[in-house]
């Protein structure tokens, strides 16, 4: 036993109370939390595989099992389904991403990890911002892997480089909005088991949309719900940007998908960012 008092390694940081210093620490602490997330992926890369397993298996099912029966382009069953389904898979992966936020947040809360961080002199905002930045970077890596798979399956973007990049920015914009939903849910659920059950909620949210099937092929009422699903706006908007073939839509929102893909996430953020912040602050009640 030695070195209880590490005088040599104690900086005089009692000076770090100015707003500028606090801002710097907020960024530094956020970055440390992001580093923690990426250390996880390096130490346990199977996490990536598990999280991407579902969208990949689903898209293979749809492309090779159901897709051959679907006429999404008006050119006969199965024609152009890969070009239709791949953007759908990108959007669905972003949509289900909120569980990848909610689960670790619920785990950190359940394990007392968030409490430990809150009892430390770090910027407490970093607990949330670190999660958000890490998840966005994580989503970028996810998309990169999915694009490679899509390219192998024969998908190509028909749009310009600018349009293609915009499409991926729209996907991350949706993911960003859902980070706040994920944090709100993660801080609110009783335990990780409850967080795991979210899949029951996520599944219809992801599926009742234009992700794998045009809403026009669904019964009217369901089609309307699917068309107005925020995930549909993003999926349809990026299809347009990739210039994928699609059937004419009878829904107003489908004809304004680009606006929807911008506005929906903004609305979700406007609602759930304050809710998530409020829930975080309420941890001290």
């Amino acid at each position, binding site marked *: *036993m*030695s*070195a*209880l*008092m*590490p005088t040599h*390694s*104690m*900086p005089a*940081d*009692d000076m*770090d*109370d100015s707003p500028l210093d606090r801002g710097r*620490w907020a960024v*530094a*602490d956020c970055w*440390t939390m992001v*580093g*923690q997330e990426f*250390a*996880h992926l390096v*130490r*346990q890369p199977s996490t990536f595989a598990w999280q991407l397993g579902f969208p990949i298996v689903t898209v293979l099912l749809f492309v090779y099992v159901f897709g051959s029966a679907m006429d999404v382009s008006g050119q006969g069953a199965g024609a152009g389904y890969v070009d239709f389904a791949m953007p759908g898979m990108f959007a669905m992966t972003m949509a289900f991403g909120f569980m990848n936020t909610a689960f670790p947040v619920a785990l950190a809360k*359940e*394990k*007392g*990890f968030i*409490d*430990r*961080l*809150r*009892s*430390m*002199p*770090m910027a407490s905002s*970093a607990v949330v911002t670190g999660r958000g930045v890490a998840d966005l970077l994580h989503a970028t890596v996810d998309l990169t892997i999915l694009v490679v798979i899509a390219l192998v399956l024969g998908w190509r973007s028909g749009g310009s480089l600018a349009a293609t990049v915009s499409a991926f920015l729209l996907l991350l914009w949706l993911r960003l909005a859902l980070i706040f939903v994920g944090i709100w849910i993660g801080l609110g659920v009783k335990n990780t088991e409850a967080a795991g059950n979210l899949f029951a909620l996520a599944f219809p949210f992801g599926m009742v949309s234009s992700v794998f099937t045009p809403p026009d092929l669904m019964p009217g009422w369901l089609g309307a719900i699917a068309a107005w699903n925020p995930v549909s706006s993003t999926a349809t908007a990026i299809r347009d940007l990739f210039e994928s073939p699609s059937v004419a839509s009878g829904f107003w929102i489908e004809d304004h998908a680009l606006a929807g893909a911008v506005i929906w996430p903004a609305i979700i953020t406007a609602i759930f960012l304050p809710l998530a912040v409020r829930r975080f602050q309420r*941890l*001290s*009640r």
Partner: protein
Amino acid sequence: MAESGTAILADGLSKRYGSTWALDGLELAVPYGIVYGLLGPNGAGKTTAVRILTTLTRLDKGRALVAGFDVARQPRQVRRHIGLTGQHMSIDELLSARQNLEMFGKLFHIGRRAARRRADELLEQFGLADVATKAPKTFSGGMKRRLDLAASMIRAPKVLFLDEPTTGLDPAGRREVWQAIVDLAAQGTTVMLTTHYLDEADRLCSRIGVIDHGRNVVEDTPEGLKRRIGNERLEAVAADPADLPALAELLTKVGRGTGEAIVNNAALTVTVAVADGVLALTDAATELRARGIAIADLGLRRPTLDEAFLQLTSAQEAKEATA
């Protein structure tokens, strides 16, 4: 290393959840350099007290100073001077032990290089140097808790809070963690720990505050507390309810002036406090045989913590009633 002044000062600490007061006017004055035990049954308010003192939970009434700073108004200063190990293993199970300590070092704002050096010092100090690169998910409970303790010691806090540090550990793990706490105390760290194990408080603490229903019941040294609770008791279980009066008379006699034996008609037991347990036990056995009273059981009982609380809290309530 002990500083002058008070490490923890709480005045009328109160916290309400819904309509119940989890803390109801708790008073604490803990000097530097001691291990202070907050002892109480589940739901007594121990964890709530620690959460307020470590700035995790807002108080509703009262005032608390930790390391000289007000927990409500100067939480950032308080956080610089405390360490906290909670009831859970609040470490990252996927990162290695060293990565954990380096991460916490950075978040404690001691700088990247100092964080690395401090991690090595702490791994050595807490006997984890051999498993520095392993993930805590492969550790025993005792090792995990020691890593958790190490993470709380990064800045050599003025006050270390341990909320039920050995809950959920096997006996070997408990002993490991006890030793780590004893070592920290020997080096002058001020520790406040909560526990519902009387033996744990007895072993580690130099002062013990018993609380119940969010209020102070009694505060004393472990020796003083044991004197208040009373020593061993002799308990006899009657084979026939008709023998209870005779048993009571007999046990009062072998108790040698410690007080009247207490009869529990429902359980068929008769109990008496005794000064010398073995002497009383042999006396009672001899007397019983001489008188020909049949019994179902006879034995020495140490007061359980539940009984101790009942005794201490009922004494407290009686005192409040007469006040």
